[in-house]
Structures are given as structure tokens and as C-alpha cells.
């Protein structure tokens, strides 16, 4: 934007978590100039606000550090299927597919193509510049086009069949809407007429094409373009011109098998008991023309036959034989590698970054160095909530969601990264955003520049912190007091389970570990049952059900189902994860509210100012004495970098009905101290009524809790995202810091925690 310089240097790494000996690759784009400097740094503290300790990093001496040649690289976004080899009919042929287009008016979109432009031989089924289904043929000199008589309807299934008779040069194109009560933007009461069948003479004799066979896009001089938006089902190529009777039969029953199919892609074929994570698509023609998905289009979506009789695709693959493609899907923006780092054996576990500098600008590409598996180097582990970092990657709510300012309870304060990310949607979205066609973003990947996962990035909630830069406040605090700690990531926990955590006396969460997989929850629960200790130093944790992609590291999937504070809601019938087959949505709706694991769970959110906690009687019990040693005050955290208090942003509540262990001590709470900008969370509101804000609802509060588990384990929770923003106040000497130290020092000891007795009154 005018008045703000664009970044001159951008980059990303191919992974987030590495151990000594692992190799991590860096991709860099010099937006200006042709040289940059790279340095390996350890990140300590990111928040630059003068009220805090300021930016802190340590350069790590390494032979890689230094000047490098660079060049501009352009991101590639948009999903499609590529079929290596594949049929290339040069005689008569037919193309058929079922389409549920979402943006038919957006311009030329490839459906099933071998096409790199008019000047080269090729053919394809397209949506043309006027939103009509179209058949194009080129022999490199002459181009023949045939378009349907009317534009395709958005969000309606339509069968499209094109035929080409090479001998007579005759082409036909037929489109038939297939509206049921459940499968379209509207129901059967809306009359949609099929456009009259189109027919033309096309004097083109197709010759072999050099273009790749693509589904949902077409090739171009500088790579794949013409991305299709919408769902696509059963594209096929038949090696002859279908007769009019055959076309009619196919339009009436799109499941009809056809003689002479050269390729017949069945997107349901990969559906297995463990989901449909496969990046492959199968050819059922028997000719072996399977394809491969690029940039993660969405599978496990309803197809034309979906009739609401089944919501779990595993049970009815035929109803889920579609893939939803988006022109802004991003799994990897596809930059060339600039250099790679083999993590030195003597590099301590920690939060690191490759710092890039060029033309008076700077970028950091963060990554996490964990110890080698089974070789812990400390008693304390910080579990970096990388799934949640990804969920918010390049989030755009403040700039495109009308109620965003109402949720914030103030005008957003945009940072450069927010603006640049919005100006460049080709770097992909967060799971809080919509695709360009209005459908929710259910995947997020680390292989792209992520502008808000940067140490200096402030949240648009104002002078405030969110996710990665917020968690650096905890890293800085650990560093300040000289604690030795290992850093682990969500994906490590997902892959290795309890074995990852078991060596540690205590595990610290980040400020907002919101997105968790089954294996992560299982790992944490098992760890606690084996005597482990957990410090949950945040809020709205353990909330969304996600999965990591089993074939691609650094990728999460979530389906925002019909409850929860959600930026979008999945389409009916699409609540199950493609990556595992599990139902997504909120953990509380699958019997695992966060209270069962950490004693507290999401209760309210607001983003104007933060508040202190006030101690409760349980904080004076003998079992809690170690937590409050040296704390004289009744009010805890009436200060801090995030909204001026330790209880703020999102806050969690103790609730026996939601599974808080009955012996849990409720140590302190912030009830009655929040504004009406803080509203009770929607998943707990059965009926709407006035008075759900902080000044009227006692459950709008952050609770601090403590309970013990078997074998001397225990959980301490603060129930507030803002907590860690208060740690550095007054030179790190304050009651938030004192309480955190007290708990960490005790939790890091080997001897078991004395069990908290069940309260009797």
C-alpha cells in the first residue's frame, strides 16, 4: 500500500521441526536487488514495544552465514491434478465430467485439458470467458471452439459431455443441471433449464499435444494457469465420439460406464477406513492413467449424488466422489531452494530462525530445533503449538470479515505483514479465511512465507501478541532465568506420541494451543498418567480437531463443523477430515472437552483490554502453598504487555460438567473484570439472550487451576492467552512471573507432587 514499503526479502523453509543432523532447506525471494545476507539466529524475544524487554536474538556462528546471490521468485498457487503421460486422442474423442463450479464467471478455467495456448496443438474441456462450458481444439494453426448455449450455474451440479467426430469435423456439447433437494445452492423448486445442445463443425484435426494432461487447470507458457474453482467429479476421456443416445444416457445417469474409455478418474477410489489423504487419483478405465494432486485440493467433499443419507464419507464413498479445487490452494509455493542447513550437532534445542537481510529490510524464517529422538537434553520441554501457528498463517479476518471489528471491540491495528499478505493472496490463507470462491480454507501448510509467524509481528488486536511472537515471551522468560529447556513441536508429538514427552519432568504449552490431533491429545493424556506435569500457560487450547497430513509434513487439516467460534462452517456432509476420516469440529463434541485434560476450557473472548485475576480460597490451601510462595497480593497480573493484564484475549473456565477433574483447585479468577467486548463463547449458548458479556455474565472469566494426577503428576493452568505477556513486567519480578517460577521449579523436580485431596466442601 501507499505509505508503507513492501518487504524486499521473503522466504520459507521446507519444514518447521528439525533435530541435529537433519537438513532444512531455505527458499528465498529477493523482491528487490540480487544479493542478500543470511544468518542463523536463535530467537529469544520478538515484541518490540518499548514497554517490554525489546527484540532479542543471538547470532549463531556458522559457515553458512554471509552474503548470497538472490533473485525474485514468484509464488505458485492453485490446485489441480496432473496426469503423467495420459491419453492424447488425435482422432475422434469425447470428454465428460460433472461440475459444481463456484466461480463460473471468473474467466477461463480448465476442466480437463491438454492445452498450453492457441498456438500449440491441444484440446480441452473448459469454462470459457463467459462462464459457459466449452470444448476447444487446436492443431497449432487453427483453433476450434464450441461453447454451451448458456453459462453454468454456480454451486449446481451439472453434467457436461463434449464429443468430437474427427472424420466429419463435428463437435457437440451438452450440459444438464442435476439439482436434488440436497446437492445445490437451491432446491428442486427452482426450475433450471438445460441449455440447448450445442453443435458445430470444427475443421481441426488434433495432432499430438506437448502440453501436460491436467484436471482443473491448463498449462501456459510460464506454468500452470486457468485454475478451476469448484467441485469436479468423474472426468473422463473416451476414444470415440459418443452417439447422441449415449450422450443422453450419460446426462440422465452420470454413473453410466462407457465403452472405450481411455481414462476415467474416480475420485472416490482412494477412500479407505483411514480417510482419503492420498494425493493420487485413480483411473478406473484399466489404462493406468492415475494422476497426482498438486497444492492440496480438498477431498472428502460431497458429490452430485449426495442425498444427506450419510455424513461420513467412509460409509458411502459413492456420495463423495468429488474433489473441490481452488485457484488459491497452496501446499508449496514452489520456489527453488537457495541453500540448506544441516543442523549442527552442538546446536542446543531452541527456537531458531534464518535471518535474511536485504536493502535495509529483514525477514526471519523460524524453525524449531528439537533434540534427537530419545535424547532429551533438559527436564523442561516447551511444546511449540505449530499446528496453531499454521492454522492462523496469513490470517485475513481484520481486512475482510465485516464483524471483525465487532469481535475485536475496536478498530484493528494492521501491521505490514497483514497488509502485504492481503495484497498477495497467492501466498495462501489461514483456516480463518475463505478461498476466493467463498469456501472455507481447511488446509494450511508451512511451505510459503507466513507473514504473521514472524518474531516482530504484532497482532492487529493492537499492541498485542498472538501465537508465535506471543510464545517468544515465554522463551524469553525461560532464557532470563536461565532454565534449560528442549523445544518440541505439535507435529513431533503427533508422530511420536507419549514417547516424545515421557523423558521430561514438565511440559510447557504455548499461549494458544488451539488446534490438536487425536495423537497429540492421547500423548499428553498418557504423559500425565505416567506422572508427567503440564503447565498450560494459555487459553482456548485443545479445542479444534485437526490432523497432520500423513504424506506431507507441515500441513494440517481442520473442518469447522456446526459449533464453536468459527470463521466459516463446512458444507453439510463435509465435517470429516480427508486426512484421517475422523470427524472434525470441536473436541468437546467428541467427548474430550479441554477441561478433562487441563481443568479449564474456552469460556469467552474479547480483544480490548485485559484484566487481573483475584485469588480464591483454594489458593490458600496447603497443596497450593508452593504456587503462591512469596506472593502477598490478592490481585494477580494487574499489569502486562497484552492489554495491561494477565487475564485477557481468550479465557478459559473451570467446569465440572465439562470434565474438570473433581479434585481440581480453583486458585484465582478474573470474573466481573472484563468488558462486554468479552462475550460468552457461542458453543455454550443454546438460546440467544441479552447479557452474555463480561459485565453481566460471571462465566466470562479466566480461571487459574491446579490438580494432580497419578504417580505424582499434575497440571497447572492459567486459562488466559495474555498470561505470558505479563511475565517480563518490572524486570521479570512480578506475581505472574513468581507464580510461573514457583510452579515450574516444583514441577521440574523429580519427586512426586503430593496429591491434591478431593475437596469436601
Amino acid at each position, binding site marked *: *500500500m*501507499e*505509505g*508503507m514499503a513492501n518487504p524486499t526479502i521473503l522466504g520459507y523453509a521446507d519444514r518447521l521441526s528439525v533435530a541435529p543432523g537433519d537438513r532444512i532447506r531455505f527458499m528465498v525471494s529477493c523482491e528487490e536487488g540480487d544479493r542478500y545476507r543470511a544468518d542463523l539466529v536463535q530467537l529469544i524475544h520478538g515484541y*518490540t*514495544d*518499548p514497554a517490554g524487554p525489546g527484540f532479542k536474538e543471538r547470532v549463531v556462528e556458522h559457515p553458512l552465514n554471509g552474503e548470497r546471490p538472490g533473485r525474485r521468485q514468484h509464488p505458485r498457487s492453485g490446485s489441480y491434478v496432473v496426469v503423467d503421460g495420459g491419453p492424447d486422442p488425435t482422432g475422434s474423442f469425447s470428454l465428460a465430467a460433472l461440475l459444481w463450479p463456484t466461480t*463460473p*464467471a471468473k474467466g477461463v478455467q480448465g476442466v480437463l485439458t491438454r492445452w498450453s495456448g492457441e498456438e500449440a496443438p491441444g484440446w480441452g474441456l473448459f469454462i470459457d470467458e463467459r*462462464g459457459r462450458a466449452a470444448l476447444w481444439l487446436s492443431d497449432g494453426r487453427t483453433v476450434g471452439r464450441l461453447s454451451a448455449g448458456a*453459462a*453454468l*450455474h*454456480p454451486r*449446481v451440479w451439472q453434467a457436461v459431455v463434449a464429443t468430437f467426430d474427427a472424420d466429419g469435423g463435428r463437435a457437440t456439447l451438452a450440459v444438464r443441471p442435476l439439482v436434488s433437494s440436497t446437492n445445490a*445452492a*437451491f432446491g428442486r423448486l*427452482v*426450475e*433450471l*433449464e438445460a441449455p440447448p445442445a450445442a453443435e458445430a463443425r470444427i475443421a481441426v484435426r488434433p495432432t499430438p499435444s506437448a502440453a501436460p494432461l491436467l484436471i482443473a487447470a491448463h498449462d501456459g507458457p510460464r506454468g500452470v494457469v486457468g485454475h478451476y474453482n469448484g467441485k469436479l467429479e468423474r472426468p473422463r476421456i473416451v476414444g470415440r465420439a459418443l452417439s447422441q443416445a449415449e450422450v443422453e444416457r450419460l446426462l440422465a445417469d452420470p454413473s453410466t460406464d462407457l465403452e472405450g474409455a481411455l481414462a476415467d478418474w474416480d475420485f472416490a477410489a482412494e477412500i479407505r477406513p483411514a480417510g482419503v489423504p492420498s494425493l493420487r487419483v485413480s483411473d478406473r478405465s484399466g489404462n493406468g492413467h492415475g494422476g497426482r494432486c498438486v497444492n492440496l485440493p480438498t477431498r472428502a467433499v460431497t458429490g452430485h449424488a449426495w442425498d444427506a443419507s450419510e455424513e461420513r464419507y467412509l460409509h458411502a464413498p459413492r456420495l463423495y466422489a468429488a474433489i473441490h479445487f481452488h485457484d488459491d490452494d497452496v501446499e508449496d509455493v514452489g520456489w527453488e531452494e537457495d541453500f540448506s542447513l544441516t543442523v549442527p550437532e552442538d546446536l542446543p534445542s531452541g527456537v531458531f530462525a534464518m535471518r535474511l537481510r536485504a536493502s535495509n529490510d529483514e525477514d526471519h524464517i523460524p524453525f524449531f530445533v528439537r533434540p534427537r529422538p530419545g535424547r532429551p537434553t533438559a527436564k523442561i520441554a516447551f511444546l511449540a503449538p505449530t499446528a496453531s501457528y499454521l492454522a492462523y498463517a496469513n490470517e*485475513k479476518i*481484520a*481486512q*475482510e*470479515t*465485516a*464483524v471483525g*471489528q*465487532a469481535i*475485536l*471491540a*475496536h*478498530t*484493528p*491495528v*494492521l*501491521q*505490514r505483514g497483514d*497488509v*502485504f499478505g*492481503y*495484497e*498477495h*493472496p497467492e501466498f495462501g490463507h489461514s483456516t480463518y479465511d475463505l478461498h*476466493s470462491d467463498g469456501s472455507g480454507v481447511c488446509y494450511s501448510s508451512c511451505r510459503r512465507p507466513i507473514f504473521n509467524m514472524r518474531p*516482530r509481528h*504484532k497482532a492487529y488486536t*493492537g*499492541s498485542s501478541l498472538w501465537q508465535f511472537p506471543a510464545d517468544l515471551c515465554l522463551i524469553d522468560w525461560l532464557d532470563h532465568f536461565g532454565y534449560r529447556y528442549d523445544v518440541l513441536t505439535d507435529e513431533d508429538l503427533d508422530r511420536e506420541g507419549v514417547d516424545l514427552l515421557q523423558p521430561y519432568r514438565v511440559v510447557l504449552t504455548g499461549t494458544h494451543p488451539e488446534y490438536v490431533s487425536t495423537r497429540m491429545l492421547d500423548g499428553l493424556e498418557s504423559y500425565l498418567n505416567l506422572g508427567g506435569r503440564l503447565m498450560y500457560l494459555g487459553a482456548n487450547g485443545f479445542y479444534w480437531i485437526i490432523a497432520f497430513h500423513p504424506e506431507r509434513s507441515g500441513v494440517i487439516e481442520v473442518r469447522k463443523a456446526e459449533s464453536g467460534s468459527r470463521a466459516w462452517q463446512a458444507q453439510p456432509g463435509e465435517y470429516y477430515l480427508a486426512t484421517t476420516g475422523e470427524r472434525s469440529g470441536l473436541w468437546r463434541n467428541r467427548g474430550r472437552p479441554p477441561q478433562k485434560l487441563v481443568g479449564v476450557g474456552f469460556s469467552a473472548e474479547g480483544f*480490548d*483490554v485485559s484484566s487481573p485475576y483475584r485469588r480464591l480460597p483454594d489458593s490458600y490451601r496447603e497443596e497450593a502453598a508452593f504456587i503462591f510462595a512469596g506472593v502477598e497480593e490478592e490481585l494477580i497480573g494487574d499489569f502486562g504487555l497484552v492489554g495491561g493484564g494477565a487475564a485477557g484475549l481468550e479465557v478459559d473456565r473451570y467446569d465440572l460438567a465439562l470434565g474438570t477433574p473433581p479434585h481440581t483447585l480453583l486458585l484465582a479468577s478474573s470474573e466481573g473484570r472484563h*468488558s*462486554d*467486548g468479552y462475550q460468552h463463547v457461542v458453543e455454550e449458548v443454546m438460546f440467544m439472550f441479552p447479557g452474555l458479556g*463480561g*459485565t453481566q455474565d460471571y462465566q466470562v472469566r479466566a480461571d487459574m487451576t491446579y490438580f494432580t494426577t497419578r504417580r505424582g503428576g499434575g497440571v497447572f493452568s492459567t486459562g488466559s492467552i495474555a498470561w505470558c505477556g505479563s511475565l517480563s513486567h518490572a524486570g521479570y519480578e512480578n506475581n505472574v512471573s513468581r507464580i510461573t517460577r514457583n510452579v515450574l521449579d516444583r514441577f521440574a523436580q523429580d519427586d512426586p507432587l503430593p496429591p491434591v485431596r478431593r475437596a469436601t466442601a
Partner: protein
Amino acid sequence: MPEPSTPPDRDAAVARRFDDWIRPRLRAMITDELIAEHERQPLGQHSDALERVLNYFRRQPIPDKYAIVCTVPDREWRICRLSGRRGVGPALIDDEVFNSEEKAHHAVFLRRIRDLRGS
């Protein structure tokens, strides 16, 4: 038969009529005391009257909506309008620079009051 691809959305007419109804009522609530209250404390809990006015401002549609943009980290903030079109960044409304977020918040509020009174 209407073309379902581009349906006219009658909802917009209701939204306009509602707006015509509510804006005079909100205008009548704007007083010097209310403005002073916001200046004293742009963020946090306000009087019921000020909350009501702010709730209206905050939920307006995105195109041309005011936002604050930090143009120099920790030092300078300016007022912009959002585009409502992905790919198009916000546009600064003028040259005025604020040295705190709070001042920018209040300046946005004053603009919105002016716009409300001007309609």
C-alpha cells in the same frame, strides 16, 4: 425466468432501510460528553450509550471501512480505509500521523461521528 447465476439480492434493500431507521437514532445519542468519554478511554468498557454507537460502527461492511495501520513500528500509526477486495491493500485517508494507537482509535471514532452526522 430470472437468471439464477446472478440473482438480485433483495436483502440489500432491507439493510438500507434499517440503516435509514437506526442512523438518526444514533445521531441523537452523540453528545460532547460521549465523545469525551471515548477520548478518555478508547478501549474497554464504556457507557451503554457509547457502546451502542460503537457496536454500530464496528459491524459496518468492509468496503471503505476505517482501520488503523502501523506505518512505523512502535512509533507511527495512520488511518486507512479497507478495500474489501482481496489483493488490494488499504488506502491511507490523509497525511495525518498519530504517535499512539489510542490517538488513532479516537481519530477513527471522530471520523465515524462526522460521517454519521453528514448522512
